C-alpha cells in the first residue's frame, strides 16, 4: 500500500526544492514537473484498484479523524488526482518547449504548487485544509496568469485576484461559522452532525462556502474572472486553469453540497443555475472573435453542463457529470494547447488569423479539430459518451421539467457546435494569405497533443475504461453515509 500523501507531498516538496535544483543546473529545472507528475500519475493509477475496494484514509500525525487532519483517498479523490497528474504531466511536457521567456524557474515552481494545491483539495478530508490548498492553488494561479507580464496578463491577474480573494474570504467565514456550530473541521464529522443543527443556521455557512468555492468553479454570476484570466495566461496555464483549476473548484462545491450538507433540496436550484451558466457561457463564446476568450467562455458553458449533471443527483447523472468533467479536461486542455501554438504561429488571438492553419500546422489543426468535435459531443470522441450519460440521466427522471432543461442544455450544445465548427472551417477551408510555409509545433508540443488525442479517442470508443472508476466515484458522492463510515470507521 502506497501512501496517498505522496501525491501532494512530492510536487509540493519538489516545488520548494526547485530553486535548489536551479542552482545546480538551469537546464534541468523544467524537467522537474515532468518527473513529478510521471510519479504522481503512476501512483494514482496504482492506487485505483485499491481505492475501488475501500477508501484509503490517511491520518496526518496519527490522530484519528475527528481530531487530526486526514486525507481521504476515495475513488473521487484518486480519479481527480489521476486526472490532475495526467493533465499536469502533459502540460509540463508541453511547457518544455513552450515556455521560453521570463523567469522560467518561477513558472515551474508555481506550476508545481498549483497542481499540488489542486491535488490537496481533492484528497483532503478536512475543510480548513481544503481552504488552505485552495489558496495555494489560487495564489499560484494568480501569479501564473500574470506570468507574461503584459497589459492583459496583469489586468486579468489583478481582477482574478480580487474576486478570488473575496471568494476565499466568504469561504473562510463559512468555515468559521461551521466550526462555531459544530466545533469540528473534519468533513465526515461535519456531515455526521449536520442534521443536528437548525436548517437556517446551516444554510448560511453553506451558501457562504458555495459562493466562495463557486468563484473558482465558474458558476454563473461568479465567473467574471474566468474569460479574462484564461485568455491572458500563457496557453499552457490556460489549459491547466480550464482543465484542472475550475474542475477542482467544482469538485469542492460538489463535495460540500453532497457530502457535508447533503443538500438535496438545493439541487433543483443548481440544475437551473447550471443550465443558465451553460447557456450564458455558450452564448458569450458564440459572440467571440478571440480564440482564447472563446475557449474560456466555452469552459463556463461546460461547467454549467457539469453542474446541471451533478444537480440531477442520480448515479447515472453523477457518472455522466464526472465523465463530462474528464472529457472536458481532455478536450479543453487539448484545445488550449493547440491554440497556444497556433497563436504563436499566427501572432494573433483573432480567429481570422488562423486562416490556412490546416496547411501550415496540419497536426496541430487536426488535434484542435478532434478536441472541438469531442467537446461538441460527436462520436467517436470522448465527449459523446459523457453527454450521452447526462442526457439519459436527465430523461430517466421522467419529469417534464428535466426534459425541458435537457432541451435547453442541448440547445447550448448546438451553439457550441456553431462556434467550434466555425473555427474548424477557418482552420481548413480558408486560404492562408501570406505565409503558408508548413511548420508544425515542436515535438515537445506535439507529444502532449497526441496523447490527449489518444485519450480522447480511446475513451470515446471504449468508455468502459473509466466507467468503473466513475461509477464508484459517483456512488461515493451520492452515498454520504458510506463516506462518513469509511472515514470515521
Amino acid at each position, binding site marked *: 500500500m502506497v501512501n496517498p500523501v505522496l501525491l501532494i507531498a512530492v510536487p509540493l516538496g519538489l516545488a520548494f526544492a526547485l530553486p535548489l535544483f536551479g542552482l545546480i543546473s538551469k537546464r534541468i529545472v523544467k524537467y522537474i514537473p515532468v518527473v513529478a507528475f510521471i510519479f504522481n500519475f503512476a501512483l494514482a493509477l496504482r492506487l485505483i484498484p485499491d481505492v475501488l475496494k475501500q477508501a484509503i484514509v490517511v491520518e496526518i500525525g496519527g490522530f484519528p479523524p475527528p481530531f487530526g487532519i486526514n486525507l481521504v483517498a476515495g475513488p473521487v479523490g484518486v480519479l481527480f488526482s489521476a486526472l490532475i497528474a495526467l493533465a499536469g504531466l502533459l502540460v509540463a511536457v508541453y511547457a518544455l518547449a513552450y515556455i521560453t521567456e521570463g523567469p522560467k524557474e518561477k513558472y515551474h515552481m508555481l506550476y508545481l504548487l498549483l497542481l499540488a494545491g489542486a491535488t490537496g483539495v481533492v484528497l483532503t478530508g478536512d475543510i480548513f485544509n481544503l481552504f488552505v490548498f485552495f489558496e495555494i492553488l489560487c495564489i499560484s494561479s494568480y501569479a501564473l496568469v500574470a506570468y507574461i507580464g503584459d497589459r492583459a496578463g496583469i489586468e486579468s491577474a*489583478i*481582477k482574478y485576484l*480580487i*474576486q478570488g480573494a*473575496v*471568494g476565499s474570504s*466568504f469561504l473562510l467565514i463559512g468555515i468559521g461559522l461551521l466550526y462555531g456550530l459544530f466545533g469540528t473541521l473534519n468533513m465526515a464529522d461535519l456531515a455526521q452532525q449536520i442534521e443536528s443543527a437548525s*436548517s*437556517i443556521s446551516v*444554510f*448560511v455557512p453553506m*451558501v*457562504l462556502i458555495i*459562493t466562495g468555492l463557486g468563484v473558482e468553479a465558474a458558476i454563473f*454570476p*461568479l465567473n*467574471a474572472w474566468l*474569460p479574462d484570466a484564461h485568455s491572458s495566461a500563457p496557453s499552457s496555464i490556460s489549459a491547466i486553469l480550464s482543465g484542472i483549476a475550475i474542475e477542482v473548484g467544482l469538485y469542492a462545491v460538489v463535495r460540500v453540497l453532497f457530502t457535508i450538507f447533503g*443538500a438535496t*433540496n*438545493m439541487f433543483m*436550484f443548481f440544475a437551473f443555475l447550471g443550465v443558465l451558466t451553460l447557456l*450564458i457561457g455558450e*452564448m*458569450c463564446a*458564440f*459572440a*467571440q472573435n478571440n480564440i482564447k476568450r472563446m475557449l474560456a*467562455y466555452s469552459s463556463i458553458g461546460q461547467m454549467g453542463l457539469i453542474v446541471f449533471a451533478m444537480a440531477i443527483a442520480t448515479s447515472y447523472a453523477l457518472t455522466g457529470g464526472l465523465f463530462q468533467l474528464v472529457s472536458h479536461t481532455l478536450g479543453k486542455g487539448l484545445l488550449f494547447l493547440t491554440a497556444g501554438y497556433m497563436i504563436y504561429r499566427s501572432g494573433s488571438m483573432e480567429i481570422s488569423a488562423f486562416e490556412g492553419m490546416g496547411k501550415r500546422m496540419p497536426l496541430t489543426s487536426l488535434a484542435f479539430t478532434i478536441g472541438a*468535435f469531442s467537446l*461538441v459531443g*460527436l*462520436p*467517436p470522441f470522448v465527449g*459523446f*459518451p459523457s453527454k*450521452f*450519460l447526462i*442526457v*439519459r440521466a436527465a*430523461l430517466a427522471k*421522467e419529469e417534464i421539467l428535466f*426534459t425541458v432543461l435537457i*432541451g435547453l442544455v*442541448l*440547445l447550448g*450544445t*448546438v451553439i457550441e457546435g*456553431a462556434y467550434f*465548427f*466555425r473555427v474548424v*472551417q477557418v482552420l*481548413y*477551408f*480558408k*486560404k492562408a494569405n501570406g505565409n503558408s510555409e508548413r511548420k508544425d509545433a515542436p515535438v515537445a508540443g506535439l507529444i502532449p497533443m497526441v496523447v490527449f488525442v489518444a485519450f480522447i479517442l480511446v475513451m470515446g*470508443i*471504449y*468508455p*468502459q475504461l473509466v466507467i468503473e472508476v466513475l461509477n464508484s466515484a459517483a456512488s461515493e458522492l451520492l452515498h454520504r453515509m458510506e463516506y462518513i463510515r469509511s472515514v470515521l470507521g
Partner: protein
Amino acid sequence: MSLELLLIVAFGGALLSYLFGKICPQIRDPFAVISSVALAVMMAFLYGKTMESPFYFGFLGLPLILRTNMLAWFFAMAISILGALSVIFSWDYVKDRERTDFYYLMLLLANASMLGIVFAGDFVSFFVFWEIMSWSTFLLISYNRGRALGAGMKYIIMSIVGSVSMLIGMLSLYAIYGTLHIATLSKLVPSASSGYLLFLFILFGIAFAIKNALMPLHTWLPDAYAESPTSFNGVLSGMLTRMGMYGFLLIIYVIVGAARALNLGPGIFKFNYILAWLGAITIVVSTFIALLQNDAKQLLGWSAIGQGGYMILGIAFGTSLGLAGGIFHTLNHAVYIVLLFMSVGAVQYRTGGQRDLDSLGGLIKRMPVSFIGALLGISGLIGIPLTNGFVSKWLIYKTLILEGHPFLAFAALIGTWGCILYCYKFVHHIFLGQLPEKYKMVARAPFSMQLPMIILSLVILLFGILPGIPLKVINTIGTSFGFQSLNVTTWGIASETGTLNTINIFAAVVAACVIVWLIFKAGPKAVPVAQEDTYAAGAAIPKDRYHYTVDFYNPLYRMISPYFKDFIGGFCIKLAGWTQNVCHGIRQMYTGYIGHYVMYIVLFLALLIFVQLKWSLW
C-alpha cells in the same frame, strides 16, 4: 459474409486510401475505386439474408448491434453502388485539386457511415454512424472554400439540431424501456401511450425531417448542394439526404408499427396527415422556388427538396401501394439526381467550374454523353413513362387518389408540372441553344465521368421498363412491415383500380417511334446546318450570347416570385442575426469593471440568503 467485415472494408477503405494518398498517391485512386466496388459486390451477396449480431459490447454496457434485412439491404445496395459510381466519377474530377486525400477520406467515410446507419441494429450505433456522417459531410461541404463555408455552417448547425433532438428521443426510449435494441423496441413501443408516441415522432421527426429536408427544416440543403464539390453531390443528394427517409421508415413502420403510427392524433390532425401535408407543401413550394434559380446546382438542390416531399407523401398513408411508391421513389430519385449532378459535374469540369445557367449553352454538340445523361435524368425526374421516376410517381399518385386525398394528389401533380419547367430550363440553358465562343473547344467528359453516367442512364431505363425487378424487393419490405402484398409483375403492378403495364406502353412507344421515324425518313433528307444559320429576320446572328436564357420564364417569375421565396431560409438568417445580437447583449454583462464583478458575487450571496429567509425554499 459478416456485416462487421463489410463495415471494416468500408471504414478501412476510407482510412487506407487516405494513407495511400500520403504514401504513394498513384495507387490511391485505384484503391478507392476497387474498395468501393468491392463493397458493392459484397453487398450484392447479402441479398435476402437476415441476420443480427452484436459487434461491440463496450459502449456503456450497451451492445452495439449490426443487423440486416431486406430494408437495410435495399438501402445499403443503393448506397454502395451510388457510392462506387461517385468514387469513379471523382477520379478525374478532383484530380487537379488540393487536398484530395482529405476529399477521398471524407467521401468514403460518409459512404461507410451511411452503411453503418442502415445496418445499425440499435440506436446507439445508429446515432454514432449518423454523427460520423454529419461531420464528414460537413467537412466535405466546406471543401470548396468561399461560399461553401456558410453552406457548411448551415448544414452542421441544422444537423446538430437534428441529432440533438434524436438524442433526446432515443434516450427517452432508453430511459423508459432500458434498451436501445431496435428489434426489442419494436415489440415494446407499440403499446406506449399516444402522447409518448407523439413525443417520439416529433423528436425523431425533427431529426429525419432535417436530413430529408422536409419543408420548414430544409434550409441547409440548397446551399449545401450548390457549394459542395459536385463529385460529392452524388453521395450527398442520392442517399445521404435520404437517410432521413430511412429514419422515417424505421421509426414509423419498424419501431412504432403501422397500426399505431397511422392512427395517432385527433381527426384531421393525425400525425401522418400532418406529415403528408408537410410533404405536399414541400413539393409545391420547393418546385416553384427551383423554377426561380439560376444556378444549376441550386436548382437541383431545390428539386431534391421537392422530391423528398414525394417520398414522404408516399409513405405517409401506410398503404402497401404508397409505401412501395415512397421507397421506390427514394431509389429512383437517388439514381437520377446522381446522374444529373454528374452531368453538371462533367460540364463544370470542362468549363472551369461554370454552373451559372445563364452563362452556358449549346454543350450538346461538345458533350453528348453528358447531355444524354442530363436528358434521361430529367426524364426520370419528371417521370416520363418508361423511365424509373414514372413508376414510383404513378404509385404515389394512385395512392393519394384512391385514399381520397385529391388535394394532396394535386400538390404532387402540380409539383411534377412545375418540375417540367425547371427541368427544361436546366437542359435548355446548359446543353441546348447557342454554344458560346469560349466553349467552342470544350472536350468531352473523360471516361471516368462518362462511365457512371452511362451506367446510371441504363439503370433509369431498366427500372422504367422493368419496374418489377426493384418492386419485388420493395414488396418484400412492405410485407415485412405487415402490409398486404402487392400484385407485382415484371412489367408493373396489376390491380382493379388501374393497372400499370409498362410493356404495353413500351411497345406502343417503340411502335409509334418506328412509325414516325419511317414517315420522317420518307421525306427528303434533312440538311444539317451550322448553328449560326438560324432565322434572325435576315440578319447574320451575333457570334455570342444569342441564347435566350436570362429570365427565361419571365412572366411566370413575375407572378410567382413575390409568393415563392425562401422565407424560411431568410428567417433562419434573421434568426442567426438575432442570436448574434442576443449573444452580444449578454456578454455586455462582463463589463470589465472589477466593482461590478465583486457586486455579482455579493449579490449572489445576498440573494440566496434573502430568498431563504423570505420564503424558506431550501
